[in-house]
């Protein structure tokens, strides 16, 4: 996950010119470069290609003139987006859903991992793990299908429980103020088990001697969790937090798009779904690319900021 430290410089001990080193590297390692080639081609074409194409955000893209032939308009599309009526709504919706998801979703995998780590019975532990990981493998489409079916105001099981308890059926997906909660809590249901794996891995690295010493000192189970286990997985927690905060402005369109209806767009329209609609549905290529580019840049900046803070505070860093 984290970057490795710089490998010791290649076998050439004596200083050679860049050209000489290049030729020697190619001669000694050409077979490695061939193994690397498919991946290199993939990343250059399908990851850096779109980055190159993203320059249409600064142009008025005209299909038959191509990227280079289209007139340069600078930041016009960005300005139009910032001044547009949807701008603050989009930012607010995106941030509400992602910050809510980050805060509500973050503790659950940790609690589950700490709890599983205390189980001595292997059979029970395995069973709980198998069951709690399972939802992660359900596709987004099926997940959303389940949500829509369960939350249906007339036939959904959740409303059946509510009416059975004397309450009134709630048309959940038509209520705009409920959308963030539906999105976030269904995500927690689906992701908690799988999210705990990484913490379980980190917990398996806690030294038994340390726990034994704590036991001899009379520490209770809770105290051992609090003073030994949690500090042990703290670096993992920080890394996960950095990674998550790097995507604060990119709520996935895959799930939101499927749960969206005209009745809840007031809270469910986020930047990524807006990009999809303006770009591929109404074919405003340049404008939509500008919106997407804005999103990517903000994400990158957020990631760098959080990573820098984390490195200053406790020397944990992604790179």
């Amino acid at each position: 996950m984290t970057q490795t430290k710089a490998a010791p410089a290649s076998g050439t001990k004596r200083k050679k010119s860049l050209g000489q080193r290049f030729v020697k590297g190619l001669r000694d390692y050409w077979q490695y470069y061939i193994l690397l080639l498919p991946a290199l081609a993939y990343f250059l074409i399908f990851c850096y290609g779109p980055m190159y194409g993203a320059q249409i955000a600064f142009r008025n893209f005209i299909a038959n003139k191509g990227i280079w032939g289209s007139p340069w308009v600078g930041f016009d599309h960005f300005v139009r987006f910032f001044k547009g009526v949807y701008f603050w709504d989009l930012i607010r919706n995106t941030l509400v859903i992602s910050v809510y998801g980050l805060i509500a979703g973050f503790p659950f995998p940790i609690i589950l991992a700490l709890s599983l780590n205390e189980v001595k019975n292997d059979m029970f532990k395995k069973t709980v793990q198998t069951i709690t990981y399972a939802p992660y493998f359900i596709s987004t489409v099926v997940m959303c299908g389940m949500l829509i079916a369960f939350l249906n105001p007339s036939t959904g099981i959740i409303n059946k429980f509510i009416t059975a308890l004397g309450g009134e059926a709630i048309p959940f997906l038509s209520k705009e103020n409920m959308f963030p909660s539906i999105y976030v809590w269904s995500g927690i249901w689906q992701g908690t088990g799988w999210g705990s794996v990484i913490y379980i891995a980190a917990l398996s690295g806690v030294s038994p001697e340390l726990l034994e010493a704590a036991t001899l000192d009379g520490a209770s189970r809770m105290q051992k969790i609090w003073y030994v286990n949690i500090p042990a997985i703290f670096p993992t927690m920080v890394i996960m937090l950095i990674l998550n905060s790097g995507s604060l402005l990119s709520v996935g369109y895959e799930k939101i798009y499927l749960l969206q209806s005209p009745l809840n767009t007031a809270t469910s329209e986020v930047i990524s779904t807006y990009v999809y609609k303006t770009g591929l549905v109404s074919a405003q290529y340049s404008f939509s690319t500008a919106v997407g580019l804005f999103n990517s840049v903000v994400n990158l900046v957020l990631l760098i900021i959080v990573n820098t803070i984390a490195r200053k505070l406790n020397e944990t860093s992604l790179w």
Partner: protein
Amino acid sequence: MSAAVKNRIRSSKGDLVFNIFNTIFLIIVTIITLYPLIFVVSASISDPNMVNSGKMWLWPIGFTLDGYNRVFANSDIWIGYRNTIFYTVFGTLLNLAVTIPCAYALAKKSLPGRKFFNFLFLFTMFFSGGLIPLYMLVKTLLLLDTIWAVLLPTAASIWNIIITRTFLETTIPDGLEEAAEIDGCSTFMKFFKIILPLSAPIIAVMALFYGVGHWNSYFNEMIFLSDRNKFPLQVFLRELIIITQMDTNGQTITSTEAQSIAEQQRLAGIIKYSIMVVSTLPIICVYPFLQRFFVKGVMVGSIKG
């Protein structure tokens, strides 16, 4: 001496209380996770009227296979299944052919330019050109509505490359490679004769990660494909279980879809749960047996590289 015994008794009592609460907590978590899954399976084999009226809330009532009969009578499901299997198998093979050699090369510490390639690949994890430029690229390369539009844009994942690289770095002993080199093994021979056989566990993990990704993916397929004969299962599922139901929630639909949707709506109550089961079953069936591989993959990836 007696103090130590006392201490042990006290702590074992605390232990017992802790264990009870911990077990109860985990059982509650398990029930919350399991309930929706059991409900879907039960609903798929129950009398639709019982499901819609809420009388069926846990175990099946009025056993019927009508839902499944309808699902299997739907040719879209079969087309989708065929295409999904195709995309999953060939997509995964392509993923492996790109990922494993790349990870091996990057695991070679003395490779000149290793840092550069690492950065070049890692950067794509944190920054992307966006959806529209990708769409335009696929269009420019004349891949729209071809199987390549499904296979190529997801040919590798940097995350999986890192996991594989870490595995190779930590499990293949340096001495082994050196010995092979002394014996006159070329890099290719080393890779195919030594590294690949030793990497069987990570290849399994990667095949599973990528495979599940292909099986569940719908968005790229939805935007890149327009020929219904090429649609994977998830795209048909979206039509069958999302659009039909969203319609009842007030979603406007195009007139061309209206007729088929009206027909599907009549059946939606019966078939929606069956479809969920049919589409998820292959993964849920193999998953318990492969779970330890998945977990191993995450664990390998979480070791600091």
